[in-house]
Protein backbone atom coordinates (compact mmCIF):
# COMPACT_ATOMS: atom_id res chain seq x y z
CA UNK A 1 0.00 0.00 0.00
CA UNK A 2 2.84 2.34 0.91
CA UNK A 3 5.61 1.78 -1.59
CA UNK A 4 8.33 2.31 1.05
CA UNK A 5 6.75 -0.27 3.32
CA UNK A 6 6.41 -2.79 0.50
CA UNK A 7 10.07 -2.24 -0.45
CA UNK A 8 11.12 -2.84 3.16
CA UNK A 9 9.20 -6.11 3.27
CA UNK A 10 10.37 -7.44 -0.07
CA UNK A 11 13.92 -6.13 -0.51
CA UNK A 12 17.11 -8.18 -0.15
CA UNK A 13 17.96 -6.57 3.21
CA UNK A 14 14.66 -7.40 4.92
CA UNK A 15 16.15 -10.22 6.99
CA UNK A 16 19.16 -8.21 8.14
CA UNK A 17 19.26 -7.23 11.80
CA UNK A 18 17.51 -3.87 12.16
CA UNK A 19 20.37 -2.71 14.39
CA UNK A 20 22.81 -3.03 11.47
CA UNK A 21 20.61 -0.99 9.21
CA UNK A 22 19.98 1.57 11.94
CA UNK A 23 23.71 1.97 12.52
CA UNK A 24 24.32 2.48 8.81
CA UNK A 25 21.37 4.69 7.93
CA UNK A 26 21.22 6.72 11.12
CA UNK A 27 25.02 7.01 11.14
CA UNK A 28 24.86 8.46 7.65
CA UNK A 29 21.95 10.67 8.71
CA UNK A 30 24.07 11.94 11.59
CA UNK A 31 26.85 12.78 9.13
CA UNK A 32 24.41 14.48 6.76
CA UNK A 33 22.92 16.65 9.46
CA UNK A 34 25.83 17.29 11.83
CA UNK A 35 28.85 17.57 9.54
CA UNK A 36 29.47 20.66 7.44
CA UNK A 37 27.20 20.24 4.44
CA UNK A 38 30.05 20.34 1.96
CA UNK A 39 31.43 17.76 1.66
CA UNK A 40 29.84 15.97 4.68
CA UNK A 41 26.16 15.91 3.65
CA UNK A 42 27.11 15.39 0.01
CA UNK A 43 29.19 12.34 0.87
CA UNK A 44 26.57 10.88 3.22
CA UNK A 45 23.77 11.50 0.73
CA UNK A 46 25.74 9.98 -2.13
CA UNK A 47 26.62 6.95 -0.04
CA UNK A 48 22.95 6.49 0.93
CA UNK A 49 21.81 6.86 -2.68
CA UNK A 50 24.36 4.33 -3.93
CA UNK A 51 23.45 1.86 -1.20
CA UNK A 52 19.71 2.29 -1.92
CA UNK A 53 19.88 1.55 -5.62
CA UNK A 54 22.86 -0.82 -5.29
CA UNK A 55 22.88 -3.56 -2.65
CA UNK A 56 19.50 -2.64 -1.13
CA UNK A 57 17.89 -2.69 -4.61
CA UNK A 58 15.09 -0.26 -3.79
CA UNK A 59 13.25 0.51 -7.04
CA UNK A 60 13.95 3.99 -8.37
CA UNK A 61 10.24 4.86 -8.85
CA UNK A 62 9.69 4.19 -5.13
CA UNK A 63 12.42 6.68 -4.24
CA UNK A 64 11.14 9.30 -6.65
CA UNK A 65 7.58 8.97 -5.42
CA UNK A 66 8.75 9.18 -1.80
CA UNK A 67 10.60 12.41 -2.59
CA UNK A 68 7.52 14.23 -3.85
CA UNK A 69 6.05 15.43 -0.54
CA UNK A 70 9.32 16.55 1.05
CA UNK A 71 10.27 18.25 -2.22
CA UNK A 72 7.14 20.38 -1.97
CA UNK A 73 8.01 21.43 1.59
CA UNK A 74 11.62 22.11 0.70
CA UNK A 75 10.63 24.22 -2.29
CA UNK A 76 8.19 26.39 -0.33
CA UNK A 77 10.55 26.79 2.62
CA UNK A 78 13.47 27.71 0.38
CA UNK A 79 11.62 30.71 -1.05
CA UNK A 80 11.80 32.84 2.14
CA UNK A 81 15.55 32.27 2.25
CA UNK A 82 15.93 34.08 -1.06
CA UNK A 83 14.43 37.33 0.19
CA UNK A 84 15.19 39.49 3.17
CA UNK A 85 12.80 41.72 5.05
CA UNK A 86 14.17 45.22 5.62
CA UNK A 87 10.95 46.65 6.96
CA UNK A 88 7.38 45.41 6.94
CA UNK A 89 6.88 47.08 3.57
CA UNK A 90 10.29 46.65 1.97
CA UNK A 91 11.55 43.32 0.72
CA UNK A 92 14.85 42.75 -0.96
CA UNK A 93 16.91 39.99 -2.47
CA UNK A 94 19.09 38.28 0.05
CA UNK A 95 22.52 38.08 -1.62
CA UNK A 96 23.52 35.11 0.53
CA UNK A 97 20.08 33.55 0.09
CA UNK A 98 20.79 31.43 -2.93
CA UNK A 99 23.71 29.76 -1.22
CA UNK A 100 21.75 29.22 2.01
CA UNK A 101 18.83 27.76 0.08
CA UNK A 102 21.15 25.51 -1.91
CA UNK A 103 22.98 24.16 1.15
CA UNK A 104 19.76 23.61 3.07
CA UNK A 105 18.15 21.88 0.12
CA UNK A 106 21.23 19.74 -0.37
CA UNK A 107 21.29 18.74 3.28
CA UNK A 108 17.57 17.98 3.24
CA UNK A 109 17.93 15.77 0.17
CA UNK A 110 20.88 13.95 1.73
CA UNK A 111 18.91 13.49 4.96
CA UNK A 112 15.91 12.18 3.09
CA UNK A 113 18.05 9.59 1.30
CA UNK A 114 19.51 8.43 4.63
CA UNK A 115 16.05 8.04 6.19
CA UNK A 116 14.88 6.15 3.12
CA UNK A 117 17.90 3.88 3.41
CA UNK A 118 16.49 2.84 6.77
CA UNK A 119 12.76 2.89 6.10
CA UNK A 120 12.84 1.23 2.68
CA UNK A 121 14.96 -1.68 3.95
CA UNK A 122 13.67 -2.22 7.49
CA UNK A 123 10.18 -3.57 8.19
CA UNK A 124 8.63 -1.70 11.12
CA UNK A 125 7.47 -5.02 12.56
CA UNK A 126 11.18 -5.77 13.10
CA UNK A 127 11.85 -2.46 14.78
CA UNK A 128 8.93 -1.87 17.15
CA UNK A 129 9.27 -4.91 19.46
CA UNK A 130 13.03 -4.27 19.74
CA UNK A 131 12.51 -0.70 20.99
CA UNK A 132 11.73 -2.24 24.39
CA UNK A 133 15.42 -3.08 24.68
CA UNK A 134 16.18 0.63 24.28
CA UNK A 135 14.01 1.46 27.27
CA UNK A 136 10.73 2.36 25.57
CA UNK A 137 7.88 1.03 27.76
CA UNK A 138 6.30 -2.15 26.34
CA UNK A 139 2.88 -0.51 26.54
CA UNK A 140 4.06 2.22 24.15
CA UNK A 141 5.68 -0.16 21.65
CA UNK A 142 2.61 -2.38 21.73
CA UNK A 143 0.30 0.56 21.11
CA UNK A 144 2.60 1.59 18.25
CA UNK A 145 2.50 -1.94 16.83
CA UNK A 146 -1.30 -1.98 17.01
CA UNK A 147 -1.39 1.42 15.34
CA UNK A 148 0.82 0.04 12.58
CA UNK A 149 -1.39 -3.02 12.10
CA UNK A 150 -4.64 -1.06 12.13
CA UNK A 151 -3.57 1.88 10.00
CA UNK A 152 -3.42 -0.31 6.91
CA UNK A 153 -6.98 -1.47 7.51
CA UNK A 154 -8.13 2.11 7.98
CA UNK A 155 -6.27 3.62 5.04
CA UNK A 156 -7.74 0.83 2.93
CA UNK A 157 -11.18 1.82 4.22
CA UNK A 158 -10.60 5.47 3.37
CA UNK A 159 -9.78 4.52 -0.20
CA UNK A 160 -12.72 2.15 -0.51
CA UNK A 161 -15.14 4.68 0.95
CA UNK A 162 -13.78 7.43 -1.30
CA UNK A 163 -14.27 5.25 -4.36
CA UNK A 164 -17.78 4.27 -3.29
CA UNK A 165 -18.62 7.95 -2.79
CA UNK A 166 -17.22 8.87 -6.19
CA UNK A 167 -19.46 6.21 -7.72
CA UNK A 168 -22.43 7.87 -6.05
CA UNK A 169 -21.42 11.29 -7.37
CA UNK A 170 -19.82 12.37 -4.10
CA UNK A 171 -17.19 14.52 -5.80
CA UNK A 172 -19.48 16.39 -8.14
CA UNK A 173 -19.20 19.82 -6.55
CA UNK A 174 -17.20 21.51 -3.80
CA UNK A 175 -20.17 21.09 -1.49
CA UNK A 176 -20.64 17.38 -2.14
CA UNK A 177 -16.88 16.87 -1.76
CA UNK A 178 -16.98 18.34 1.73
CA UNK A 179 -19.93 16.16 2.61
CA UNK A 180 -18.04 13.15 1.32
CA UNK A 181 -14.95 14.04 3.36
CA UNK A 182 -17.04 14.21 6.50
CA UNK A 183 -18.43 10.82 5.64
CA UNK A 184 -14.92 9.45 5.19
CA UNK A 185 -13.68 10.83 8.49
CA UNK A 186 -16.81 9.64 10.29
CA UNK A 187 -16.65 6.21 8.66
CA UNK A 188 -13.02 5.63 9.62
CA UNK A 189 -13.67 6.88 13.12
CA UNK A 190 -16.50 4.40 13.58
CA UNK A 191 -14.37 1.74 11.89
CA UNK A 192 -11.33 2.39 14.06
CA UNK A 193 -13.30 1.82 17.22
CA UNK A 194 -15.28 -1.09 15.83
CA UNK A 195 -11.96 -2.66 14.89
CA UNK A 196 -10.62 -2.06 18.40
CA UNK A 197 -13.66 -3.67 19.99
CA UNK A 198 -13.60 -6.65 17.66
CA UNK A 199 -9.87 -7.13 18.13
CA UNK A 200 -10.44 -6.98 21.88
CA UNK A 201 -12.95 -9.81 21.56
CA UNK A 202 -10.73 -11.74 19.18
CA UNK A 203 -7.74 -11.42 21.48
CA UNK A 204 -9.80 -12.38 24.53
CA UNK A 205 -10.45 -15.66 22.72
CA UNK A 206 -6.70 -16.03 22.22
CA UNK A 207 -6.08 -15.54 25.93
CA UNK A 208 -5.10 -11.86 26.09
CA UNK A 209 -4.78 -10.67 29.66
CA UNK A 210 -2.69 -7.54 29.22
CA UNK A 211 0.49 -8.49 27.41
CA UNK A 212 0.89 -8.58 23.66
CA UNK A 213 4.41 -9.97 23.89
CA UNK A 214 5.47 -12.01 20.88
CA UNK A 215 8.61 -13.87 19.92
CA UNK A 216 10.87 -11.59 17.98
CA UNK A 217 12.64 -13.33 15.12
CA UNK A 218 16.32 -14.03 15.61
CA UNK A 219 18.41 -11.90 13.31
CA UNK A 220 22.14 -12.43 13.36
CA UNK A 221 24.26 -9.31 13.37
CA UNK A 222 26.77 -9.53 10.54
CA UNK A 223 30.23 -8.42 11.78
CA UNK A 224 31.29 -7.68 8.19
CA UNK A 225 28.35 -5.33 7.75
CA UNK A 226 29.08 -3.55 11.03
CA UNK A 227 32.79 -3.18 10.30
CA UNK A 228 32.11 -1.92 6.79
CA UNK A 229 29.56 0.56 8.16
CA UNK A 230 31.94 1.91 10.77
CA UNK A 231 34.67 2.21 8.16
CA UNK A 232 32.34 4.10 5.81
CA UNK A 233 31.21 6.50 8.53
CA UNK A 234 34.78 7.06 9.68
CA UNK A 235 35.87 7.77 6.11
CA UNK A 236 33.13 10.38 5.66
CA UNK A 237 33.94 12.07 8.98
CA UNK A 238 37.67 12.02 8.24
CA UNK A 239 37.30 13.38 4.70
CA UNK A 240 35.08 16.17 5.90
CA UNK A 241 37.39 17.09 8.77
CA UNK A 242 40.51 17.00 6.60
CA UNK A 243 38.86 19.20 4.01
CA UNK A 244 38.68 21.84 6.73
CA UNK A 245 35.10 22.75 5.99
CA UNK A 246 33.03 24.45 8.64
CA UNK A 247 29.28 24.45 9.30
CA UNK A 248 27.84 27.20 7.09
Amino acid at each position, binding site marked *: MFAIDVAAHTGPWRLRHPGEKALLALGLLGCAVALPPWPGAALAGTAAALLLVGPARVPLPVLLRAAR*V*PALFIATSALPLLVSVHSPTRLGWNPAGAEAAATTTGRAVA*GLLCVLLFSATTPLSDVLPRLVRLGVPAAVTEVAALTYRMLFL*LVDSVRAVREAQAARLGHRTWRTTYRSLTGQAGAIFVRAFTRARRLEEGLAVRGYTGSLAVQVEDRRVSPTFVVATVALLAAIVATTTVSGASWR
Partner: protein
Amino acid sequence: MHIAEGYLPPVQAAAWFVVSAPFVVHGSRALVQQVRRDPEAKLLLGAAGAFTFALSALKIPSVTGSSSHPTGTGLGAVLFRPPVMSVLGSIVLLFQALLLAHGGLSTLGANVFSMAIVGPWVAYGAYLLARRLGGGLDVAVFLAATLGGLATYCVTSVQLALAFPDPASGFLGAVAKFGGIFAVTQIPLAIGEGLLSVLVVRLLTRV
Protein backbone atom coordinates in the same frame (compact mmCIF):
# COMPACT_ATOMS: atom_id res chain seq x y z
CA MET B 1 3.33 21.20 8.15
CA HIS B 2 6.06 18.63 8.63
CA ILE B 3 9.57 20.08 8.66
CA ALA B 4 11.50 17.91 6.22
CA GLU B 5 14.48 15.75 7.14
CA GLY B 6 17.76 17.61 7.39
CA TYR B 7 16.14 21.02 7.30
CA LEU B 8 17.15 22.19 10.76
CA PRO B 9 20.70 22.88 12.00
CA PRO B 10 21.92 20.00 14.23
CA VAL B 11 21.95 21.94 17.50
CA GLN B 12 18.41 23.19 17.03
CA ALA B 13 17.17 19.78 15.90
CA ALA B 14 18.63 18.33 19.10
CA ALA B 15 17.23 21.16 21.20
CA TRP B 16 13.68 20.43 20.00
CA PHE B 17 14.10 16.82 21.11
CA VAL B 18 15.10 18.08 24.54
CA VAL B 19 12.10 20.42 24.68
CA SER B 20 9.64 17.74 23.56
CA ALA B 21 11.02 14.87 25.62
CA PRO B 22 9.44 15.77 28.99
CA PHE B 23 5.98 16.03 27.43
CA VAL B 24 6.30 12.72 25.63
CA VAL B 25 7.77 11.01 28.71
CA HIS B 26 4.93 12.38 30.82
CA GLY B 27 2.42 11.21 28.21
CA SER B 28 4.03 7.77 28.11
CA ARG B 29 3.71 7.46 31.90
CA ALA B 30 0.05 8.41 31.66
CA LEU B 31 -0.40 5.85 28.90
CA VAL B 32 1.39 3.09 30.81
CA GLN B 33 -0.80 3.72 33.85
CA GLN B 34 -3.95 3.80 31.80
CA VAL B 35 -3.06 0.50 30.16
CA ARG B 36 -2.18 -1.08 33.50
CA ARG B 37 -5.59 -0.16 34.91
CA ASP B 38 -7.38 -1.33 31.79
CA PRO B 39 -5.58 -3.69 29.39
CA GLU B 40 -8.28 -3.19 26.74
CA ALA B 41 -7.27 0.50 26.55
CA LYS B 42 -4.26 -0.64 24.54
CA LEU B 43 -6.50 -1.58 21.64
CA LEU B 44 -8.43 1.68 21.85
CA LEU B 45 -5.20 3.67 21.86
CA GLY B 46 -3.89 1.69 18.91
CA ALA B 47 -7.13 2.46 17.08
CA ALA B 48 -6.86 6.14 18.01
CA GLY B 49 -3.33 6.26 16.61
CA ALA B 50 -4.41 4.49 13.44
CA PHE B 51 -7.34 6.89 13.11
CA THR B 52 -5.04 9.91 13.42
CA PHE B 53 -2.74 8.45 10.80
CA ALA B 54 -5.62 7.58 8.50
CA LEU B 55 -6.87 11.17 8.64
CA SER B 56 -3.74 12.10 6.73
CA ALA B 57 -5.12 9.99 3.88
CA LEU B 58 -8.04 12.42 3.54
CA LYS B 59 -7.57 15.08 0.94
CA ILE B 60 -9.09 18.44 1.84
CA PRO B 61 -9.68 20.52 -1.25
CA SER B 62 -7.94 23.84 -0.74
CA VAL B 63 -8.83 27.18 -2.29
CA THR B 64 -5.25 27.54 -3.47
CA GLY B 65 -5.81 24.61 -5.78
CA SER B 66 -3.43 22.26 -4.05
CA SER B 67 -4.97 19.79 -1.68
CA SER B 68 -3.69 18.97 1.74
CA HIS B 69 -4.67 16.75 4.60
CA PRO B 70 -5.87 17.39 8.14
CA THR B 71 -3.51 16.91 11.09
CA GLY B 72 -6.21 15.47 13.30
CA THR B 73 -4.50 16.86 16.37
CA GLY B 74 -7.36 19.16 17.34
CA LEU B 75 -9.99 16.47 17.16
CA GLY B 76 -7.58 14.00 18.75
CA ALA B 77 -6.82 16.29 21.67
CA VAL B 78 -10.52 16.81 22.40
CA LEU B 79 -11.22 13.09 22.18
CA PHE B 80 -8.14 11.64 23.88
CA ARG B 81 -6.66 14.54 25.97
CA PRO B 82 -3.30 16.19 25.25
CA PRO B 83 -0.92 13.97 27.33
CA VAL B 84 -1.97 10.80 25.51
CA MET B 85 -2.07 12.73 22.23
CA SER B 86 1.61 13.62 22.72
CA VAL B 87 2.48 9.92 22.60
CA LEU B 88 0.03 8.97 19.85
CA GLY B 89 1.06 12.04 17.87
CA SER B 90 4.73 11.08 18.20
CA ILE B 91 3.99 7.55 17.03
CA VAL B 92 2.01 8.87 14.07
CA LEU B 93 4.76 11.37 13.17
CA LEU B 94 7.34 8.57 13.34
CA PHE B 95 5.22 6.43 11.01
CA GLN B 96 4.65 9.35 8.66
CA ALA B 97 8.41 9.94 8.52
CA LEU B 98 9.16 6.29 7.86
CA LEU B 99 6.22 5.16 5.71
CA LEU B 100 5.54 8.34 3.74
CA ALA B 101 8.84 10.27 4.00
CA HIS B 102 6.66 12.98 5.49
CA GLY B 103 8.76 14.94 8.00
CA GLY B 104 11.94 13.30 9.22
CA LEU B 105 13.86 11.64 12.02
CA SER B 106 16.26 14.45 12.90
CA THR B 107 13.36 16.91 12.75
CA LEU B 108 11.05 14.60 14.69
CA GLY B 109 11.63 16.54 17.91
CA ALA B 110 10.59 19.80 16.27
CA ASN B 111 7.57 18.27 14.54
CA VAL B 112 6.47 16.54 17.74
CA PHE B 113 6.65 19.86 19.54
CA SER B 114 4.49 21.69 17.02
CA MET B 115 2.04 18.94 16.10
CA ALA B 116 1.86 16.57 19.06
CA ILE B 117 2.35 19.04 21.93
CA VAL B 118 1.50 22.67 21.17
CA GLY B 119 -1.27 21.90 18.68
CA PRO B 120 -3.14 19.52 21.01
CA TRP B 121 -2.70 21.72 24.11
CA VAL B 122 -3.93 24.84 22.30
CA ALA B 123 -6.81 22.86 20.83
CA TYR B 124 -7.74 21.42 24.20
CA GLY B 125 -7.41 24.79 25.90
CA ALA B 126 -9.59 26.43 23.27
CA TYR B 127 -12.15 23.67 23.63
CA LEU B 128 -12.31 23.97 27.44
CA LEU B 129 -12.41 27.76 27.33
CA ALA B 130 -15.17 27.81 24.75
CA ARG B 131 -17.20 25.33 26.75
CA ARG B 132 -16.67 27.24 30.02
CA LEU B 133 -17.80 30.43 28.32
CA GLY B 134 -20.99 28.66 27.36
CA GLY B 135 -20.10 27.93 23.75
CA GLY B 136 -21.86 25.03 22.06
CA LEU B 137 -20.12 21.80 21.14
CA ASP B 138 -19.90 22.90 17.50
CA VAL B 139 -18.22 26.18 18.34
CA ALA B 140 -15.83 24.56 20.80
CA VAL B 141 -14.81 21.84 18.37
CA PHE B 142 -14.40 24.33 15.52
CA LEU B 143 -12.19 26.57 17.67
CA ALA B 144 -10.20 23.60 18.96
CA ALA B 145 -9.43 22.21 15.52
CA THR B 146 -8.86 25.58 13.84
CA LEU B 147 -6.75 27.12 16.61
CA GLY B 148 -4.87 23.84 17.09
CA GLY B 149 -4.02 23.88 13.40
CA LEU B 150 -3.06 27.56 13.45
CA ALA B 151 -0.91 27.10 16.54
CA THR B 152 0.93 24.26 14.84
CA TYR B 153 1.57 26.44 11.83
CA CYS B 154 2.77 29.35 13.96
CA VAL B 155 5.16 27.13 15.90
CA THR B 156 6.55 25.70 12.68
CA SER B 157 7.12 29.22 11.33
CA VAL B 158 8.93 30.14 14.55
CA GLN B 159 11.04 26.98 14.36
CA LEU B 160 12.06 27.78 10.80
CA ALA B 161 12.69 31.45 11.66
CA LEU B 162 14.99 30.42 14.51
CA ALA B 163 16.90 28.23 12.09
CA PHE B 164 17.04 30.79 9.31
CA PRO B 165 16.90 34.33 10.75
CA ASP B 166 16.52 37.08 8.20
CA PRO B 167 19.87 38.74 7.34
CA ALA B 168 18.34 42.23 7.60
CA SER B 169 15.57 42.01 10.20
CA GLY B 170 16.62 38.91 12.11
CA PHE B 171 14.26 36.49 13.80
CA LEU B 172 11.11 38.62 13.63
CA GLY B 173 11.49 39.28 9.93
CA ALA B 174 11.99 35.60 9.33
CA VAL B 175 8.82 34.75 11.30
CA ALA B 176 6.94 37.17 9.04
CA LYS B 177 8.47 35.62 5.92
CA PHE B 178 7.81 31.98 6.76
CA GLY B 179 4.47 32.81 8.35
CA GLY B 180 3.43 34.77 5.28
CA ILE B 181 4.32 32.07 2.82
CA PHE B 182 2.65 29.28 4.78
CA ALA B 183 -0.39 31.42 5.62
CA VAL B 184 -1.55 31.01 2.03
CA THR B 185 -2.01 27.28 2.45
CA GLN B 186 -2.30 26.82 6.20
CA ILE B 187 -5.01 29.30 7.18
CA PRO B 188 -7.62 27.94 4.75
CA LEU B 189 -6.53 24.46 5.74
CA ALA B 190 -6.97 25.17 9.45
CA ILE B 191 -10.45 26.54 8.81
CA GLY B 192 -11.23 23.57 6.58
CA GLU B 193 -10.11 21.20 9.30
CA GLY B 194 -12.23 23.10 11.81
CA LEU B 195 -15.34 22.71 9.66
CA LEU B 196 -14.58 19.08 9.00
CA SER B 197 -14.10 18.37 12.71
CA VAL B 198 -17.45 19.96 13.51
CA LEU B 199 -19.17 17.85 10.88
CA VAL B 200 -17.46 14.70 12.14
CA VAL B 201 -18.39 15.40 15.75
CA ARG B 202 -21.98 16.13 14.67
CA LEU B 203 -22.05 12.85 12.80
CA LEU B 204 -20.68 11.01 15.81
CA THR B 205 -22.94 12.60 18.39
CA ARG B 206 -25.99 11.87 16.29
CA VAL B 207 -24.98 8.21 16.18
